[in-house]
């Protein structure tokens, strides 16, 4: 019985000591150093001493922010409205005229933006995140609902403007082979108009965020990785990104760094020369 207690105590003390000795003060020392030296070392020091803190400090902030009506928008985006089989065809101008006569206009819109995140599209692919489409902004600029809402249900009592997904749902429907699917309806409408007006994005990532696969399982790093290990782990897959970096100004910069203490006039400063984190 007796020898067991000190052993346990010793072990416990050692545990606390290692904790105290290594992680916290080391971190503090590094922090002090970096502050003292005027942020010359931060990348290396932070990566070595406290990579989890640095990461967790950034990630939740970006994820936590969302527009005030995001929840509502998400709900609306998930609804699939009944398919409108019969549509009324009228020329754009007549339709515009009629809407104006009926007093329907931009002000009648209830939502400032729409989240284009339809389950219809997600059934076949999910490579990109949803688009946050500023509906009223587009309406205010174009001043013309008929530009996008070209048809309406043939049923007179149905709502005047319907959402795109009322008519455009799955692609290549047997019963309506002429009607393009929802994904194509959005893309044709947005891209063609943006090209014509020479305004707004025409490429994928101008509107969508790419759904990058979860890197939690992809990254293989030891528990306390060296910064250079982190770099080489990234390069394992993102080889070309590494090459691009090597030809970027960020990498090739040589010269004074007016905002960095002690390097204001050091003309040879830069990643390619004296900076420490140049791996």
């Amino acid at each position, binding site marked *: 019985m007796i020898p067991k207690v000190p052993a346990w105590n010793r072990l416990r003390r050692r545990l606390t000591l290692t904790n105290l000795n290594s992680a916290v003060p080391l971190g503090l020392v590094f922090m002090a150093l970096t502050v003292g030296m005027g942020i010359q070392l931060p990348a290396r020091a932070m990566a070595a001493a406290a990579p989890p803190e640095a990461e967790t400090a950034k990630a939740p902030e970006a994820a936590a922010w969302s527009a005030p009506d995001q929840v509502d928008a998400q709900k609306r985006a998930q609804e699939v409205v009944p398919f409108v089989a019969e549509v009324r065809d009228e020329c754009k101008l007549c339709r515009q005229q009629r809407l104006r006569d009926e007093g329907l206009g931009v002000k009648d819109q209830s939502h400032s933006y729409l989240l284009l995140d339809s389950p219809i599209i997600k059934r076949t692919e999910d490579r990109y995140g949803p688009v946050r489409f500023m509906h009223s902004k587009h309406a205010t600029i174009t001043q013309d609902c008929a530009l996008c809402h070209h048809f309406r249900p043939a049923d007179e009592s149905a709502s005047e403007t319907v959402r795109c997904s009322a008519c455009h749902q799955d692609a*290549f429907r*047997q019963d309506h*082979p002429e009607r393009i699917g929802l994904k194509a309806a959005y893309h044709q409408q947005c891209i063609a108009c943006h090209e014509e007006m020479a305004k707004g994005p025409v490429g994928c990532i101008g509107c969508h965020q790419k759904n990058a696969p979860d890197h939690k399982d992809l990254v293989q790093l030891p528990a306390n990785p060296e910064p250079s290990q982190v770099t080489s782990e990234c390069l394992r897959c993102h080889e070309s990104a590494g090459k691009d970096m090597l030809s970027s100004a960020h990498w090739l910069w040589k010269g004074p760094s007016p905002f960095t203490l002690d390097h204001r006039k050091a003309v040879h400063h830069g990643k390619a020369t004296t900076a420490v984190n140049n791996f």
Partner: protein
Amino acid sequence: MGISRRNFFKILSVAGAATATARTPARAWESQAPSEAYGCIVDLTRCIGCRKCEQACNEVNKLPPPDRSFEDLTVLDRKRRPDEKTFTVVNRYYSGRIDERDQLIPTFVKLQCMHCQDPACASACIVGALSKQENGAVNYDVSKCIGCRYCMVACPFEIPAYEYHDPITPRVMKCTFCYERVANEGKLPGCAEICPVEAITFGRRDTLLKVARDRIKENPGRYVDHIYGEHEAGGTSWMYLSAQPFEKLGFVTLPDHPMPRLAETIQHSLYSYLWSPIVLFGMLSGIMWAFRGKGERQEDHEGGNL
């Protein structure tokens, strides 16, 4: 003056035709086109050249990763052909049209196997490794293939490619029309499914022809009045709509009759009497003897042209 392999075949078929017509009337050629074939319409006025179809094709067919990322649009700067690692490629053409800001308007052309209604590749294949399926796909069966590569010579669109790099189990590689996905899994072809602007419309061939005609009729200013593949080479399952004349976009001008018709008629007539093969092979050896040694060198050049 040497004789190329192609010319050699030409001489052969002329000689054969002469024998055939002299002796027996040719048996009537019949189209084997399935009545319920599926197909695709590629609307070149819609395509934005995003290469997503190439990416999807690569993924669903488990092809090797590309040399350059599918997001890299600079690969469009030079013309490419489908090869043994890529079943479909998108090329960019400038036909000279400019927009209001004096920028050249590009036209993007997606290339893949056309899945001909009466495929020349299948009729050239002596072991039946290539066959037109009920659903429209021209399917390749690697277990039957003997690697003679006649299909590559026969295809008017120069589509089939060969895995020359693989000495043990080389295959002929071409677009499969996602046969497995469409026939067994009830899914869409990978490229048609992913295309963001529905430049590729998938459906029954007869329905598609109607859709295509309607598009031209409703928008005569947008399209040239021609559905490429409706009649070309006897009709193909993949068809194209365009704003520019097809010749300007790298499409070959082909006769309307199916490519296999001539070859098959000759073959059938020749073999209808037992003596024909003897005459044929006699003639063959005569020609080969006359041009021996020259053919081999020429064949290398032929390979380079494909």
